[in-house]
């Protein structure tokens, strides 16, 4: 993350950046405030990213630990959330990669049983079996939305989560994910097209998601 004078000026408008500067000066109270303020958001994003609640909490703690360890080198160059999710993105991708490596080993060791398929395969199977349109209950909808999210690549998923749940701009997402804003734009478009495809059964004309499924 390149820090320029103008980026610093912009960053200093963010109150959380000021808290982080206090942390840099050794304030434990400020650090506690930051943890309390961001823990739920961070755990939620990581949970959706790695698909495992316990691992998400472990990762979130690792992220906060990295924030703390980086405090003395901290230079405000972006909003605090952008910086935090930059660290989260790196930590999550590392975790997912090492999990994928373990899975490869496991798959290699497993004898040739029935192919379980990727989340996308499962999702597509689910959607085809659910045609034509029918009433879905909320739990099923939630499960399928989650599967749809899992069907995205890790980078698409992260971009979607930051855009949807953190309300981050393409520029901020680009900073957090070490991409250009143009790449983010393209990533999000592909992600949303994929989601549209696998969630097609829920997109019948006249359905207004989030209202007609309410219990």
């Amino acid at each position, binding site marked *: 993350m390149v820090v320029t004078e103008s980026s610093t000026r912009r960053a200093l408008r963010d109150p959380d950046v000021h808290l982080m500067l206090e942390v840099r000066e050794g304030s434990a109270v400020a650090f506690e405030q930051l943890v309390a303020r961001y823990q739920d958001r961070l755990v939620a994003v990581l949970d959706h990213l790695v698909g495992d609640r316990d691992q998400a909490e472990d990762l979130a703690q690792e992220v906060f630990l990295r924030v703390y360890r980086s405090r003395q080198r901290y230079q405000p160059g972006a909003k605090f959330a952008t910086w935090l999710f930059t660290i989260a993105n790196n930590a999550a991708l590392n975790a997912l990669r090492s999990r994928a490596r373990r899975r490869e080993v496991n798959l290699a060791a497993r004898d040739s049983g029935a192919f379980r398929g990727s989340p996308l395969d499962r999702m597509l199977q689910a959607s085809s079996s659910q045609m034509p349109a029918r009433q879905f209950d909320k739990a099923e909808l*939630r499960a399928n939305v989650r599967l749809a999210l899992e069907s995205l690549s890790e980078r698409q998923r992260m971009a979607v989560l930051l855009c949807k749940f953190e309300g981050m701009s393409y520029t901020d997402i680009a900073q957090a994910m070490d991409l250009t804003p143009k790449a983010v734009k393209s990533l999000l478009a592909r992600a949303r097209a994929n989601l549209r495809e696998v969630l097609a059964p829920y997109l019948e004309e006249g359905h207004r998601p989030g209202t007609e499924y309410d219990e």
Partner: protein
Amino acid sequence: MSDHHANTEPLSDEQLVAYLDGEMPSADARRLEARLADDGGLRSRLNALDRTWQLLDQLETDAAGRGFTRTTLEMVAAAEEAERSFTAAPRRRVRRAALAAALLLAAGMAGFLAVAAVRPDPNRRLLEDFPILENLERYRAVDGIDFLTALHRAGLFQEELPAVEEPPGEWVPVASPDAARERIAAMDRAKKEQLRRWREQFAALDADEQARLRRLYHDLAAAREPETLHAVALRYYEWLKALPPIARAELVELSPAERVERIENLLARQSRDRIRRLGAEEAQVLGAWLSEVTDQMIEALPESAQARIRQEADSQRRRGALLMFLQSSRSSDGVRRSIDQVLGEGDLAELRARLPESTRLDLERHAIPEQWRIVKGWIPQLVRHRFVRRGPRGLFSETDERTLVEFFEHELDDAEFDRLLALPAEEMQRELRRLYLQRSKGPPSWRPGTPGPRPRPGLRPSRRPPQEPPSGPGRSPPAPR
């Protein structure tokens, strides 16, 4: 989007998504909006993308777990401590090396221990609190060192309670964080996870309670017999846990002095209740002991009773008849003897010596007359155990069967009659004998000349011919009612 192709160029998903995300330049956005007014297909595409995005609202976003903030801060604090020790490392390494070199000349082992002793420990707090964490619930049940001392002085919880499993948990001296470290290092994953939970529980307590527990532990450490008091605390907690909730609640309400008194009473009552129940092991010992003293007991009876008992064909039935005679509250001829009148203290000592240790200790807590009363209380239990539950006939001779039929026909009320009929044949007969014994205190043949039980007023008349033996559903259907 250039002006030239503004209304003809196909729009990519990328552009539509950028529009939805508010990331499209405002001029392009205005042009897109103009096209949307006329282009139904474009509107559909945009709507589909928008609705897909809205579907993501269905994803659940639970808050971080309880204790997340605290454990995160603890983890960071531990990291900071480790960081500090790392920063100080070069100076310390020199000191350690010099110290080690010097001490190596004197004694290698002592040098190692000295270095270990000066090494800063990032887990200091955890190690210090470890003995408290490991015994958190147990120590929380104790008011303070005075209460434990009072229990100890009253002689309570000095030894393992028979009904309570001996709790694990060694005494870890305060002066030995190394012992705690070793114990933690040796723990498996599940135990470490348990320790983590205890630590969370401890951290969730208010500061006063934490301070109280630390004080209790330090008082224990300073006591003359810390291991003994610690064991008392452990046993007290295990015992308290097993109490019914109401008794526990009442106990907790009392002042420490009153509580010690109530505990003493409760323990005595429990001991009495326990000793009065005959377990399988005790039944075996008692049965063997009784078979050895049967002849001696018969000889001590008046002649009329001896003659009656000796009528029985075999030794087992003689023993049964003797026991029933000794237990019987009915005495047709006024001859009564109690077991302690026909046996001596030496016989009782012989029985005690053979009993399982916990039963023996419980029995020895009582004076000799009470010990005899307890043994007398065991005998009917043994009779039930030996003669009623076991074997198809038990104490009953073939000639008794007719009396049993009479009893079945005339003495049982409707509910009992139906219940017995519903049982499998063998179980039904066993239950019938049990009921007969319960009401008549002995098989019919023990009371020569005594007719079978007479019909009680208010009971129904015979339901089947008396010569027909009682039968369960497996043999023949019950007579129609």
